[in-house]
């Protein structure tokens, strides 16, 4: 079972108290963007086996959004961090590097 810690209220709970919000760190391509960029933004998602970054909402708790870095095969959670950021914090990337050397995910490695 996936156990997440909400970085906003500090509660550690299993996944049914949260709601998944899909892939993290999407860059929006809106009006004026090329059709290819817009298509990628709307439809193209990572589906990795291993390290993954996601958005989650503490739906039954404080109600706030946050980010989680986890492994899709082992459900190991490398860390959770604030929603108000464009990239994972360094300590979480370092932790993933320690656990899964050579990982990469979109632009991050």
């Amino acid at each position, binding site marked *: 079972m996936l156990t997440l810690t909400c970085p*906003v*209220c*500090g*509660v550690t*709970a*299993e996944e*049914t*108290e949260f709601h998944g919000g899909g892939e993290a760190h999407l860059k929006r391509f809106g009006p004026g963007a090329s059709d290819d960029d817009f298509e990628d933004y709307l439809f193209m998602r990572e589906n990795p086996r291993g390290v993954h970054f996601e958005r989650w909402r503490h739906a*039954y*708790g*404080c*109600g*706030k959004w946050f980010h989680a870095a986890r492994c899709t095969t082992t459900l190991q959670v490398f860390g959770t961090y604030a929603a108000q950021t464009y990239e994972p914090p360094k300590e979480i990337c370092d932790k993933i590097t320690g656990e899964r050397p050579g990982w990469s995910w979109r632009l991050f490695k």
Partner: protein
Amino acid sequence: MSDPVTALNGVSSDSGIATITGVPLQGMITLRGDLSAAAVKNAATGVAAVDMPGQGEANCVENRGICWMSPDELLVLCPYETVAANIEKMQQTLGIQHALVANVSDARASFRLGGPRAREVLAKLCPVDLSPGAFTPGMFRRTRMAQVPAAFWMRNADTFQIICFRSQARYVFDLLKISAQPGSEVHLYHA
């Protein structure tokens, strides 16, 4: 003027391994804003007459208290009849501070779950570690109770107070009753 009543109008059950009691009308005021602002803190403590709780905590005395709901939300408890006056008072304390004060007394239902088996009755319904070492009086937890949102804290060593939405009061009461049905002890926290 119609008489206000609680959702299940004074329901209770003590036939099982824990007692379940509907809490009489309870004044509840939602206060949202920057909880680090002095005006927001004073607005809450001024009407509840208890200290400001820390993150994930509740300070409650009888039917007054403050519950920490999220980093920008408090639930202020007070006697039902005093809600209107208290909202007035809170708004005066807040002044120009950006905040929301709303009377949610009639939007919620509240139950008390008591007895030495109360922990395990609730633990069957919520994905929360309710062992005596992990959840103690003073702590406040918003979570899921079977299929609906709920929040609870401990009034003393073996009494929980649970708050849920009023429209779900019957569901929550029935859930608690089933979870406390005779013979359903799991001996998780007691021999």
